[in-house]
């Protein structure tokens, strides 16, 4: 009987198998890396209609987050301020600046400014700012150093596993309520320690069951 496969077949096959295996593993690893929440979900930096700089306002001018996002302590939404709020200052400050064109229009016409949403959660997730801010979870824990961003950028993945990390071990992210909007807060001792003390003091006990966030 004539040979079906030449001598080299097995060698080639083995090497082929080896290569295929490596490709598969590598591909899987790469795919996992790309789709990993921290890589896939972060870095979203849409262009806003008005070039508002948090770096300038919150950072250099040191405005408190509450000044504009005044609903965070009362409501689930951290409402974007009405044009009115901008105009409180900008009637006097740079009243003519062309970059504030849209703001002035909105104030005049009553038409809203179309800000672009940066931090999005699925609509079956009921995140509540009030619940977090009032127990001393700082803005920085989820939004990063906004006060250093010219354009707001998503820096945390905001996926369920990530939420759970904190809900299981809140200590590192709990600080005195008055420090919540102090994004640069640097306590003299281990913040987690302070967190633990506050947790015991206030009896903080973040939900880990489903209905805590899904309703």
């Amino acid at each position: 009987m004539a040979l079906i496969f030449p001598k080299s077949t097995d060698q080639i096959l083995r090497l082929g198998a080896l290569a295929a295996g490596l490709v598969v593993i590598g591909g899987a690893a790469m795919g996992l890396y790309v789709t990993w929440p921290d890589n896939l979900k972060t870095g979203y930096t849409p262009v806003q209609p008005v070039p508002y700089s948090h770096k300038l306002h919150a950072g250099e001018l040191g405005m408190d987050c509450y000044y504009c996002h005044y609903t965070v302590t009362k409501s689930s939404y951290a409402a974007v301020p009405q044009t009115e709020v901008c105009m409180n200052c900008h009637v006097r400050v740079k009243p003519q600046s062309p970059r504030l064109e849209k703001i002035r229009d909105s104030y005049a016409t009553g038409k809203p400014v179309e800000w672009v949403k940066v931090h999005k959660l699925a609509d079956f997730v009921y995140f509540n700012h009030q619940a977090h801010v009032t127990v001393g979870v700082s803005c920085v824990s989820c939004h990063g150093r906004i006060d250093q961003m010219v354009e707001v950028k998503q820096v945390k993945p905001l996926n369920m596993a990530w939420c759970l990390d904190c809900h299981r071990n809140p200590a590192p992210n709990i600080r005195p309520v008055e420090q919540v909007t102090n994004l640069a807060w640097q306590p003299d001792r281990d913040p987690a320690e302070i967190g633990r003390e506050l947790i015991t003091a206030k009896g903080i006990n973040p939900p880990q069951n489903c209905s805590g966030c899904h309703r």
Partner: protein
Amino acid sequence: MLPFFKSNTPVNPVYGVVGLFDRPEDLLRAGEELHHKRGYTKLDAYSPFPIHGIDDAIGVPKSILGYIVFCAGLFGFANAVLMVWYTGAVDYPLVIGGKPLFAWEFSIPVVFELTVLFSSFGAVFGMFYLNGLPRFYHPTMNFSRFGEHTDDKYLLVVESTDPRFDVEELQAVMSELGAATTEVVEA
């Protein structure tokens, strides 16, 4: 070195001598003659079906597959228990139907199935491993009548790596014991 990665390049251009028999009992006799009487060790017998007694005749050791399967099964078992316990009681403990986070009672089915699954993987792939499969080229395939032995013929092969390897003697003995034809195959 794993047999899987054993090189095909021959040390010696001659692979061995092949004898073709029409009847299994001739094969058996030839095998016994060469192995037991003449002390050949590197022989092998090809047949369309497993022939009773051939292993003793040509000295094939007992298969160690059983041990492989046992280890594989143990591996599957451990994995299963670990998985059920870790996912339920460690990674995300959830109260479900008032049942505990981990209990033997409700782990049994999954544990059993995985044990069986891994055992049979062990059995099949272990067998492949021991038989060096897949192997698409083998020197005996150079034998001119290779293939008839998967129908109704029987081959006796003696490898040239055998210390007592002696072509003339082998051919003589085989033909004398009823080989229809004998042949030297190169590696």
